[in-house]
């Protein structure tokens, strides 16, 4: 139980920091410049919310799902958070697309690194080796 409480604390605080960061980013310029931060918060927070409430419901057992605790209502309400103001998919799609724009630069970077590695291999006079290489070849004569 203590572990669940600790995990929930971590999840909540991580989500909280992401939201605060988004808020500052909006304050600093405007929402347009904070697309990434906003999307992160919008996806992460409802997810965290549901996970933490779910843990709590589990701890309460049957009591957690009926009207005797507010947990069931919180869960139901929290679940809609994944849909209102743009469902997860929209934010994920947008964030994914924007992230992926780095792809070209990332590729150039990785290619440059590979080229540099090849150059260094030459400079330090080593050849790339796979220490597990066997190159064991089967017999040359067909048994048919």
């Amino acid at each position, binding site marked *: 139980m203590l572990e669940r409480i600790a995990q929930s604390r971590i999840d909540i605080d991580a989500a909280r*920091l992401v939201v605060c960061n988004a808020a500052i980013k909006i304050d600093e310029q405007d929402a347009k410049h904070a697309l990434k931060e906003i999307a992160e918060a919008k996806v992460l927070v409802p997810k965290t919310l549901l996970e933490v409430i779910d843990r709590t419901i589990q701890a309460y057992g049957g009591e957690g799902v009926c009207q005797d605790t507010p947990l069931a209502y919180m869960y139901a309400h929290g679940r809609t958070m994944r849909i209102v103001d743009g469902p997860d998919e929209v934010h994920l799609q947008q964030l994914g697309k924007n992230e*992926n724009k780095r792809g070209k630069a990332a590729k150039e970077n990785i290619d440059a*690194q590979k080229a540099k*590695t090849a150059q260094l291999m030459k400079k330090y006079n080593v050849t*790339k080796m796979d220490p597990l290489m066997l190159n064991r070849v089967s017999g040359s004569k067909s048994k048919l």
Partner: protein
Amino acid sequence: MVASKSEASQKLLVSDKGSRPINASGRIPVMVRPWVSERAMKTLDVVEKFVEEECIPADPVIACLTGEGTEKRFSAHPQIIEDLKLRAKELGLWNMFLPKNHFKEGAGFSNLEYGLMAEMLGKSLVASEVRIFVSLGTLTLSNILRPGHQLRSARHGKHGSHRQVWHRRTKEEVAWKPARRQDSVGILNDRAGRCLQRRHQHWVDNAQGRQRLGSEWRGEIKIQHRSDRGADILVQKWWSSGAGDPRCAVYITMGKSDPDNKDPYQQQSVILVDADTPGITVKRMLSVFGYDDAPHGHGHIIFENVRVHESNMVLGAGRGFEIIQGRLGPGRIHHAMRSIGAVSRTGDITNCDLSNSISGRKSTRLFHCPCERPQEEAFRPLPQRARCDA
């Protein structure tokens, strides 16, 4: 810092037209920016460039140069690492691990600033080593620096005779950065290796291991106030980081000096041991999921009645817990940020591949998975991004 020379080198490095659209300082979360100085931002960009353009490409080369076989792998000192160290010094990237609120010997960065740099370093295996940025170094070196310790070896003859262990350094290194404290100069300039041992609990608490080893191995530093002021150490250690490297000159050893003390936090002490002291066996190296992490590695090391001068005790008997705990916090920030950096690199790799397959070029992945389907493609990088940032 050696201002003019390193500044010139930094300028040269950063003014290269890089392919990355936003550099590291531009990616600092807006939330923490107020706590990052201009100087740290500048250094961060230099660190990023250095890691991306010089360290990451060197990693596979080092793996090749390290070779095969335990003996060889743990005594290999690929020249390329030394070259990179020189380069790091040239760029002024050295000794950045000492937080400014505690030490004057470091580069004067805060834990946050240092954390952001550690994030960059996490992308490469060699990056930390060449800048003595290793958390281990962080942890242990600052422990040594704090008390301004002088290392003595009791075996060296007469009462009171001692020698400093930091001798294993080259002239050029000493010249490069004169430290304020004479006895810390060697280690601040690298070359004097170090090894941290604080994992005796692994077997003291592990019933099975204890049985296997016999009850005489109680992980004790027996302080016997002899006429030669020697302290005897009888302990076996697992996971002694860095013990495999023959350049390791000092063992920072933690053990129980007062196992019967009522306060469990007063039972341990930290003592410095010259690696040449008789009675030490570096028995073997431990693998981590099959990897040996050579030449640094994780040693299984035995101290059998190793006698050192009692003044080698850091801070004083019974203060081991305090010493180790004191630096664990900053050390964890380092590890956490390195992990963030390492995991961000997966983003670079997948982004690179994904943008390839979206634009119709062939993916470099050998095995294709269902996430290759276009409608799902855009979903892949997010969990990484969001989790890195959370």
